[in-house]
């Protein structure tokens, strides 16, 4: 039989209509196979593999005809069916004859179908239960009697997935780039502080953006930003913006002399510490 004949056969049999209505319903190849077995009223333990395979392939043809995306799983199953069919055509080899148990080529498929059927039945059972929010309802609100909730330090009810989701949200806000799970052992904040400071010593004033080059790794961008934060905190630099949404400029907070005789109250220690770092880095 030629392919053309096959196809004309196919569509002459009003198969198209019978399948078309069902076409979206199948969850996958196993679902489709169970449907074919039921429709043909054949024994699942003794599947007429040629007939079922033919109908399965017909169905896929119709899917193609209707320009539906055929999921890869359907193709894999088609290949499996064809392979089973061809194995059943082969005579048993002498070696296999010697074997006490020669398994039916269909056995694996039957096992999968039976198992799938069980879970499909189980899913129907689940769907038949009285579902919260469908048949039954609970009081899902705080009773007025409860009054104000007092905060309690008790481990709350939280799932791991929520934790991952929360982290995903953070990363989505920070950037769309992949955030490596392990921070690369690149430049440290201390080193970067030194670099930023030496640029500032040379230039006096630096555009914020110029410290972030497009070629930088994400880690370096983070480290640079943290360095700037650290320098601000240590009051070693000043950050100014001339106009709304204008460029941000960084410049050294004070001249070297002022720094050395700085006798500020609370900040004195921090400044001294910062100065140490600055000096140390300047030495490099």
């Amino acid at each position: 039989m030629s392919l053309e004949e096959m196809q004309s056969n196919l569509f002459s049999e009003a198969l198209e209509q019978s399948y078309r209505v069902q076409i979206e319903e199948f969850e996958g190849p196993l679902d489709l196979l169970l449907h074919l077995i039921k429709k043909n009223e054949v024994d699942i333990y003794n599947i007429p593999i040629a007939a079922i395979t033919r109908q399965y392939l017909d169905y896929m043809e119709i899917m193609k005809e209707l320009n539906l995306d055929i999921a890869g799983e359907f193709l894999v199953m088609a290949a499996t069916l064809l392979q089973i069919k061809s194995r059943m055509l082969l005579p048993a080899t002498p070696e296999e004859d010697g074997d006490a148990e020669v398994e039916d080529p269909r056995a694996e498929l039957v096992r999968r179908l039976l198992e799938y059927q069980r879970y499909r039945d189980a899913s129907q059972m689940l769907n038949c239960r009285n579902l919260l929010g469908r048949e039954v309802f609970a009081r899902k609100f705080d009773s007025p009697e409860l009054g104000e909730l007092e905060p309690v330090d008790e481990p709350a009810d939280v799932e791991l997935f929520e934790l991952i989701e929360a982290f995903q949200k953070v990363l989505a806000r920070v950037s769309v780039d992949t955030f490596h799970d392990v921070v690369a052992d690149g430049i440290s904040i201390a080193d970067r502080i030194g670099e930023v400071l030496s640029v500032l010593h040379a230039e006096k004033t630096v555009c914020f953006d110029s410290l972030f080059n497009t070629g930088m790794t994400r880690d370096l961008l983070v480290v640079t930003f943290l360095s700037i934060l650290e320098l601000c905190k240590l009051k070693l630099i000043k950050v100014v913006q001339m106009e709304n949404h204008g460029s941000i400029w960084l410049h050294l907070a004070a001249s070297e002399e002022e720094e050395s005789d700085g006798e500020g109250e609370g900040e004195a220690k921090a400044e001294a510490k910062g100065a140490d770092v600055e000096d140390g880095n300047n030495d490099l």
Partner: protein
Amino acid sequence: MSGKSLKGIVESILFVHDQPLTLDRLAGILEEYDRADLRAALDELIEDYDTAERGIVLIQVAGGYQLRSRPEHGDYIRRLNKTKGVKFSQSALETLAIVAYRQPITRAEVEYLRGVDSGGVMKSLLEKKLLRIMGKKDVPGKPLIYGTSREFLELFGLKDLNQLPSLKEIQELVPPDPFADQPALPLGSAVTTDSAPVADSVPPVESLDSIDSPESIEG
């Protein structure tokens, strides 16, 4: 029991609590009472509510006790809320059923059993908190393993996983205890078009019998 009836006190607490209340929790709240008395009060309440006359039922669900509206009255309540109620796709139900009966289970195993890619539906069930990640399987590749959540039990009105009717009861079945020993799924050889000789590494069909254990649990 003086003045106030313990049953009434327990009823009050159940009424204002918006989640299933465990006996432990109740015992913690009502420290001055015996656990046995609390349990008796709960049992009595379940009986009191168990008449078609009532609009409320007290059930055991997700390890605790919860007052819920009578299932037969769902229609009227949906009128009140103007909702059609939750609805599940076949793929979501299938995936839930598989995870419920075979947990802990990996995604690859779910997909082998369903015969289709299930990442999308599993993610959506995770987002709905019906599935949860239980950790990683100690096999090469360390795949994530999944199980059902407390919300799953609440949604389907199950006291615990053992209350799931065994697959045997549903039709022809799989172990009621989802944690019982199960044969490993023949992943790898299965989904692919295995060209290995017949009856090579494939387990015999009888192995299905070995995972069936009869069990009578009320559904």
